[in-house]
């Protein structure tokens, strides 16, 4: 950590990890409801636990992105954050807003629009927080007058994410039209601008961890994000096939959707070739695991498993089945959870005020492998359940409820894998607070002049 104000990332990571833990609670509840029967049906039914599960994911990953950006930008622009105080205010409002939304969901305060359930006041507060964040980052970069491609891609991704949240504020009379614009936010986030954020963070970590040549890495970074958008923008079509749009979205959308994995396989190769050069010599072994893991798991979960059901002739049968959460869980975990955990792991020794950047603990490895195998198991459970569902319900014509009863064994597997995954998450959080306890961290880092560099270790 070269700049004292990079420290502001720490409380962001604390909030992100706590919400990550909470997300597990609601995920486990939802999985148990799949098995049924549900003793909590009148307290919080599936719609509530599922809505909180997905909303917490979005909030904590965004919190992680913002923390990571506060960590990366000072180093890339070689300056302190424009206003540390503003960053704290932003985090405070953001967190309170998130808690209000979750409590609201428990009491039925929702817009009932998938993934964009946030009531209007919550949505507006999100916009305000994003603007505070972007203002702070832009002023930081302006102050230094220096910016790199890596941070440019990262910050542009977040700025575009804020812009693409605006369609979520619009109301449409026609349900088909409202679905059409809902995907401008949801799809163009997770298969567009969030990929920019991931690619930017990946480039930053790979340059740091492998010592790869920056010019080379940034040249290919443009190719990767270029491929993301060339395929991903029109790839929005794979959400449009069956909702009432003109027929031409199917062949055109199918073609570009099938190209989407290219950028993701490119990202995995990007990480592989960068790391091969340095031979995994960096002492932060855990950060290397999470970084390379993110690139590889993205190619599998987002790329391969997305490709598996994106073609219209296949999607016709799989649309709206458990095949979708198979892809959704593994894609989100690989692309966004793992990259945030990679940045957190990379930053941990620096937060602890250590001169060397090594990071290797048995608990850290357990946290990594338990999450990875737990998520792999959940992906398989959803996949096997989804395939059976497609054949029984969609092709043979067995009723929905009767089919779900036949999938019980897969739901048992889902719960088993989810417990393994949750154990990994718990260990990660424990390991984080053990390595960088809140109290010592604050004592060491929050006193003194914020503009003095504390250490020259990268």
């Amino acid at each position, binding site marked *: 950590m070269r700049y004292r104000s990079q420290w502001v990332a720490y409380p962001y990571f604390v909030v992100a990890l706590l919400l990550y833990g909470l997300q597990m609670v609601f995920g486990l509840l939802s999985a148990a409801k799949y098995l049924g029967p549900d003793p909590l049906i009148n307290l919080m039914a599936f719609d509530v636990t599922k809505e909180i599960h997905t909303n917490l994911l979005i909030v904590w990953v965004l919190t992680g992105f913002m923390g990571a950006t506060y960590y990366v930008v000072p180093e890339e622009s070689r300056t302190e954050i424009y206003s540390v105080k503003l960053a704290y205010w932003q985090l405070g409002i953001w967190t309170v807003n998130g808690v209000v939304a979750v409590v609201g969901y428990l009491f039925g305060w929702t817009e009932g629009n998938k993934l964009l359930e946030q009531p209007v006041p919550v949505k507006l507060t999100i916009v305000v927080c994003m603007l505070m964040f972007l203002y702070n980052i832009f002023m930081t970069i302006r102050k230094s007058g220096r910016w790199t*491609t890596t941070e440019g891609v990262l910050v542009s991704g977040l700025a575009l994410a804020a812009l693409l949240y605006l369609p979520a504020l619009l109301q449409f009379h*026609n349900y088909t039209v409202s679905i059409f614009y809902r995907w401008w936010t949801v799809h163009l986030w997770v298969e567009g601008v969030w990929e920019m954020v991931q690619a930017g963070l990946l480039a930053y970590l790979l340059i740091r961890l492998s010592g790869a040549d920056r010019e080379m890495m940034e040249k290919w970074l443009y190719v990767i994000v270029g491929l993301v958008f060339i395929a991903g*923008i*029109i790839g929005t079509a794979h959400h449009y096939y*069956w909702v009432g749009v003109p027929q031409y979205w199917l062949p055109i959308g199918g073609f570009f959707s099938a190209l989407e994995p290219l950028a993701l396989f490119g990202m995995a190769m990007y990480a592989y070739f960068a790391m091969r050069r340095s031979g995994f010599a960096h002492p932060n072994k855990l950060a290397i695991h999470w970084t390379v893991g993110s690139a590889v798991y993205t190619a599998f979960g987002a790329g391969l498993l997305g490709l598996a059901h994106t073609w219209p002739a296949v999607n016709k049968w799989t649309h709206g089945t*458990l095949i979708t959460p198979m892809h959704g869980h593994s894609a989100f975990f690989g692309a966004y959870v793992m990259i945030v955990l990679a940045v957190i792991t990379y930053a941990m020794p620096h937060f602890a005020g250590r001169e060397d950047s090594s990071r290797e603990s048995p608990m850290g490895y357990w946290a990594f492998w338990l999450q990875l195998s737990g998520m792999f198991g959940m992906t398989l459970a959803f996949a096997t359940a989804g395939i059976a569902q497609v054949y029984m319900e969609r092709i043979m014509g067995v009723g929905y*409820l009767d089919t779900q009863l036949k999938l019980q064994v897969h739901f048992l597997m889902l719960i088993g894998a989810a417990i393994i995954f949750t154990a990994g998450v718990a260990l990660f959080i424990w390991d984080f607070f053990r390595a960088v306890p809140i109290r010592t961290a604050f004592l060491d880092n929050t006193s003194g002049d914020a503009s003095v560099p504390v250490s020259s270790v990268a």
Partner: protein
Amino acid sequence: MTKRHTRMFFVGGTLLFAAIFLGMTIDSHRQFATLTNADQITPAVSAGKDVWHKGNCINCHTLLGEGAYYAPDLTKITDQRGEPYLTAFLKDPSQFYSEKQHRRLMPNPKLSEEEIAQVIAFLGWVAKIDNQGWPPRPILVSGGTFPGTGEAEGSAAGVAASDSPVALGQELFRSTPPGCASCHSLVAGVNLAGPSLAGLASEAARIIASPEYQGNATTPEEFIRESIVEPSVYLVPGAMYSAAGRSFMPDNYREILEPVQVENLVAYLMTLR
């Protein structure tokens, strides 16, 4: 290839494909009105959309295949269930499905009569959206055929084994419309939205002879024909089948089906002894 070239690839590619995407968006807007029958979005349909959102329905069900995967898809539900059935269901879902049997149950949505009518109007509008023929075959809430469980097997839906009335009636029974099979199973004791039709011919003879029967049928054939075109003449006991003297079975088969189709159905159903 330098960084400047790859930056041009990124900026140029993004702008080009964003422009094509916007073009397709503009053209879609020209067609949305026709594809979605926008002229049929009445105030009731609009209000029903609000009920749909307010109830957070999409976080269990799917609609147009979008939503959560915890409850049945409702895209074509109004083609499969009549308004009286859906009204009674939404008043108290626990009358229709048991958590013990299916391991999940819809909580009571606590809607007013007006809200129920509105959300049914909304779902009726959704069912008519021109969405490239999805789903490719009807998605049923419950029931359907497991091979090897004693139900009629053989020909696939849409193809009659021969042109005998029984074969034509069997094919019609599985087709949508009329969608008989989405509410009636042929397995004894498997009651879906409608009662099981196992042993219907014998059951019909028993009903006609019983003092509860007030209709005009004197033979099992006449009883089955009457039950198809005038479902409320004889009501099968049970709160899940009727309310206020009115059967939940759609009462428009006289208009939907040709007389010869009704006869074919009767011929087929008479084979269920």
